[in-house]
C-alpha cells in the first residue's frame, strides 16, 4: 500500500491502483477514477456506485454483481452496459472499494 495523488487528493492505493481507505473517497475522485478507465459517469453509474458504497459500509465487503442487481435494483444486463466487460471490478475501482471476493 502506498500514498498516491488522484485528482489532487493524496490517497492510499494498492499495487493495482485500487483505493484502500474507505473514508478517503469522494464523488469527484470517483469521476477521475472512472475517467482513468474510460468511463464517463452518468447519474445511473453514480447510483450503482452509491449502492456499492452504502452496502460496503454495512457488510464490510464489496457487493458481487448479483447482489447489486437483486438488492441494488440495477439489472445484470445494464451493469454490463454501464461497466463493460468486467463490471464487478470496474465498479469496485471507481467506488474506491476492494474487488469483490464472492464467487456469485
Amino acid at each position, binding site marked *: *500500500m*502506498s*500514498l*498516491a*495523488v*488522484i485528482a489532487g487528493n*493524496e*490517497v*492510499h*492505493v494498492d*499495487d*493495482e*491502483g*485500487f483505493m484502500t481507505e474507505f473514508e478517503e473517497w469522494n464523488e469527484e475522485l470517483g469521476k477521475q477514477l472512472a475517467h*482513468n*478507465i474510460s468511463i464517463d459517469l452518468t447519474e445511473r453509474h453514480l447510483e450503482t456506485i452509491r449502492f456499492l458504497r452504502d452496502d460496503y459500509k454495512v457488510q464490510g465487503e464489496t457487493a458481487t*454483481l*448479483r*447482489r447489486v*442487481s437483486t438488492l441494488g435494483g440495477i*439489472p*445484470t*444486463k445494464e451493469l*454490463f452496459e454501464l461497466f*463493460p*466487460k*468486467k*463490471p*464487478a*471490478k*470496474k465498479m469496485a*475501482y471507481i467506488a474506491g472499494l476492494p474487488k469483490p471476493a464472492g*464467487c*456469485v
Partner: protein
Amino acid sequence: MTLTMEAPIPVFDDDATDRKMAIICSKGSLDMAYPGLVLANAALGEGIETHLFFTFWGFDIINKETMGQLHFTPVGNPATHMSPMLMGLPGMTAFATHMMKKQIEGIDVPSVPEFLELITDAGGHLWACRMSADMMHLTEADLYERVEGIISASDFIELSEGAQTIFV
C-alpha cells in the same frame, strides 16, 4: 514505507478479455449443475465469451420440466461422510436435496433457473446437444427459452474453436 506518486491504473481491457470458454455440462444432479454455472458466471464477469453446452443428463438443467427440481442424491457419494446404509433409506434423497438447496440459498446463490437467467443476461450462450434431444424425444419447445439452439457435436467443435473447454 509509503511515498507519494501518481496512482497506478488497473488494466481492465487487456488481451485476457479475448479469451473464450466452452463449458460442457453432462450431469443433471443438483451438485453437478452448479460447478458449470458458477464458472460460466465468473468467466462472463471477467469479460470472457462463454458458451455452455448441455448434453446427456446435463439436459435436465435446461429441460423446463426438470430444471427447477434437480436432486442431490447421497447414495454412493463418499463426500457425505455418512454410512452408505443410511443414505439408501427412503426419503433420504429428498432430505439431502432440501438441505443442499437451503445451503445454496443461504449463501445467496441463485436457483438453477435463476442462474441461467443471470448467465444469459451477462451475455452467456446456452446450447443443447442434438443427440441427447433425439434420445429423449425433446424439441426446442421443451427447453428453457433462452437456449439458442439444438446443435450437433461437430457444431460444438466448431463454435468452441480457440476456447478453453471444461467438461463437467
